[in-house]
């Protein structure tokens, strides 16, 4: 009996959940397919090779954050075709041509159908950049502290001689500004999310596992 049951359970002819509403953000639905597509294809412009893969849950949370920010901010941020084309190239660049087509076909997608996802990612990044890209100040003391506590030990741990503070200051300042802006953005997004109506359907997310 067990083999028969096993055969039945594994046979693709048995009903399987293929899609469901995994989250609602301000009354709009996010489907499991949306999240899978984003997990499959979407990377940000700062993505580097070697970055760890994101889980479905992480992808969902990021998608929700994007929706919340774009909904609540309501600023008319223009996204040009060139920007979406550039990001699309970045997404394509991770796959061989044949792999890319196979993955699109698996979802029944044409390349054009990815544009709404591309635009959402770009719009989100631009919104964050508009709010936190400028005006973040880093003090001389912060740079010095970072140089002493982080930069020099790290360089030494790699067997390298740390550059003098004068030479490393600009790089450290950029890094600190980026971190500070990121922290401010995260806090802001979290506060926006508290105002939004977000419902996650964990049962649907389980279907993907």
């Amino acid at each position, binding site marked *: 009996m067990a083999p028969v049951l096993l055969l039945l359970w594994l046979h*693709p002819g048995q009903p399987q959940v293929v899609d469901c509403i995994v989250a609602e953000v301000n009354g709009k639905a996010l489907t499991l397919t949306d999240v899978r597509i984003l997990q499959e294809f979407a990377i940000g412009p700062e993505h580097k090779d070697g970055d760890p893969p994101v889980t479905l849950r992480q992808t969902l949370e990021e998608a929700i954050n994007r929706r919340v920010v774009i909904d609540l901010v309501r600023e008319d941020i223009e996204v040009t075709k060139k920007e979406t084309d550039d990001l699309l190239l970045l997404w394509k660049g991770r796959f061989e041509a044949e792999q890319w087509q196979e993955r699109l076909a698996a*979802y029944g997608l044409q390349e054009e159908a990815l544009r709404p996802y591309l635009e959402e990612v770009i719009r989100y990044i631009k919104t964050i950049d508009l709010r936190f890209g400028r005006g973040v100040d880093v003090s001389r003391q912060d740079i010095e502290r970072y140089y002493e506590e982080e930069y020099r030990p790290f360089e030494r741990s790699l067997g390298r001689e740390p550059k003098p503070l004068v030479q490393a200051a600009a790089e450290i300042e950029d890094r600190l500004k980026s971190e500070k802006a990121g922290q401010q953005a995260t806090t802001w997004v979290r506060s926006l999310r508290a105002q939004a109506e977000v*419902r996650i359907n964990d049962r649907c997310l389980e279907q993907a596992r």
Partner: protein
Amino acid sequence: MSRFAGGFRDGRRRLCLPACFLCLILSLPGLMSSAAFPQSAPAAVVAKVEVWVDGAPNTENLERLVSIRPGDLYSLSAVSDSIKQIHRSQLFSDVVVTRSGVESVELRFGLTRKLIVRKIGFRGEKGTSGRKLRNSLYALQEYAYFSDEKLARATEELKMALIDEGYFQPQVRAAAKRVPGAPQVDVVFAIAAGARYAISAIRFQWSAGVPKADLKKAMKTKEGDLYSLSRLDQDLARLRALYAKHRYPRADVELTAEDFFPENGTVSLLIRVDPDEHIEILISGADVPIDLVLPIWEERIFEEWGLGEAEARILAYLREKGYILAAVSSRIEREEAGIRIVHRVDPGQKARISNVRFEGNSHFTAGRIKKELGIADRVLFFGRLDGKRAFELTSEIKMLYEIEGFPAAQVGLQFSVEGDEAEAVYTIQEGRQQRIKTIEIAGASLFSPEMIRSQLSIAEDGPFFRPFIRREIEKLSAFYLDQSVRGTKIEPRIEALGEDLFKVIFNIQEGRMIRIQSLFVSGNRTTRNNVVLRELRVKEGDLARADRISLSKQNLERLGIFSEVAIEEIPISESAEHVIITVREGERNYAGVGIGLETRDTFRSASSLLETSLRLRGTAEYMRGNMFGSAASLSFVTQFSLSEKRVVVTWQQPYFLFNIPVETYINGWVEAEDRTSFAFEREGISVTGMRPFFWGFDMLTTLGYARTTLTKLEVPPNEIDRQFYPYSKTSLAPSFIRERRDDAFNPERGYFSSLALDWAFPLLQTESDFLKGLFKYQRYFTLVPRVLLGSTFRLGLGMGKMPIHERFFAGGSNSFRGAKFDELGPEDPESGIPIGGKALVLFNFEFSFPVVSSLRNFSGVIFYDAGNSFFNRSDVDLRDLEHAVGLGVRYRTPLGPVRLELGWNLTDPEKRGRPIAFITIGNIF
């Protein structure tokens, strides 16, 4: 255990292993594919689409909601899009799609219907009334959609409401119970309100400004009272106002500590007050209230701005009082404790503006400027332009010119003063007019340029005013939506063609015409589907015209049975959409009671009121709406007083039989009325239909039967009354009404006309045989703001056998104010009691005016009434009209004015010189 069983088990085991291995081999490709990619198979085709709702196959043809059809290529993104379209309908809280089959795919859409709250109840120690708890709920309401999130929010709202009532740590647990067989839930909140604390001490942490004793005195919350947060918030606001009064407008008052003592149920409060800067305001040279400018300094502001704003307010105040030449200079002096703001006012001479003149205007005549800006010429003592408005007109005239294409227009104001009269002279430098040379429509292919042009208000060779271009774009966008085109983008381009000439180009990127693929109705638990569908002006297959969709929504709202109507359009493809109509049924039961006092005795003076016998007068009514889900209503109204008793039952439905669009009323009544000359009892039944006619008239037609018994006759009965006792009447009564007043209860402009006919004919052994008609015309004018002229004309004519209760009577506050109720017209020669007539002529003229300018709802009135009632039509003679004049006061209410009037009859020698007093609610009609 037998050796056979053991042997059999061994044999089974020997068979199982290869079978499992075989299963594993067979399923391995499937396992690998599902691990690598989501569950899809290239080139799979959809063979079947099913829709299940709440675990059962749907019976409402909901397959229309799914955009995937059998024969389509299977694709996950199409499934995802379908789910989102279904979700946008807002009918379902969850959608799960399952698939079976590899190359021939069967899809099942499992929908979970959104639940509606049927009932909300409260139990346990509520701490306050159920009504207060219900009113505090916003997230969850009866007949609205239910969700777990809303339930959680509602629980928090109840907790906050109990905290506001002074309860601490209230416990609220919510339980939602599904109603079997229906997508509804009953919600019950179990409440333990918690403890209330008494205030043991109110302490202040404060530095200066107001004595502590005054602070406590200003608060309504006292030591010993039960602690309530909402009440304390109001007290903190009172303290802020108190500090503002003591010239600390920026004082910060907040509750900083609450020390609870649960063992004895008390709480001690600490309130911190930071008075901030002391702001002294001195206004010298004129009597201007400080409160006019003090609020400016409540916030920290740019001081120069604050001074400018204060000067503007002071000047506006003085100018309104007639000090049109006033001037103000201001400065700020810094002191140790704060600042002193000094305004030195030179009021100048007080003058009344008696005339308005314009110089330099050639494009507009003076009359046109006055008409556009509502500057009325004076009428007697009224309608003078006040100084404040005179200065405001400068910018209004400038705006008028700008709209007409004069962007550089300049307007100056000077006064020419003689004595205490002044003439306001507006000097206008018009500048050059900018005009539109050509209008071009680019990119439109669905409609002709002429058709699009006809939607515009701007025209070639007309004035150019840039802000109007945006308005024109909105008009064009609305036009496209009304023509069922969605996704149209319109961008303007303006080219200068030389000096003051412009070319306006509307670049239109047209969208697509959309058809309605499916219509769904949701939310109607009681109302029948056909009642909703009957109000729609669109159907499946129609073009999605926005104006018809909007009209459908208005029609549904007009039924009066829904508290909310929403129509959602959900695009499903480039050329099709679903339309979802969601309604929320409203309250169905209404009841009302009114009670008053009345007397038959004549009211002569205040002291005689004590000797007057007063009796109760009242009205009670009950209405049940949306009967049988048909949008009909049933109402019971009863009235009782000294002179009349009445019970009326009315059935009202929005359509006549067979869905004929005539609003229909079926009335049955029993009444008794005691008039001056007679009293009667009557029972009757009627059917009335109402519908818009043509030429802007509404038509009402009533077919009725009534049986009247005279219970008292103070005059000798005439032939009709003697012969036909009791009197039965069958009648057909059409009425035509044209309502063009701005407000039916408090009209200020416009007109009203009506013609009511009553044809009583002998049918089924009834005695009725007469025809009468009453024509009425009313006209209202606003001469200057708050000065009104109103006039009413009534002509009534009858023929045939008219018993006394069908004749025309006149006299009283609503017809002729020179005679008491019913007492104008022919009288019995012996008793002198009115007997009514077959003809009626009435004229009423009123002139109302403000008495106290600050009391906007209170006005005075002088009136002139002329009229009479005639026994026969042939007796009508305008020389026999009686005349009355009078005066009074009235107070405007939303249901019409409360009138107190005195009328003097100028014609009747017996009544001349003696006024008759009237107290009435409502306008004369």
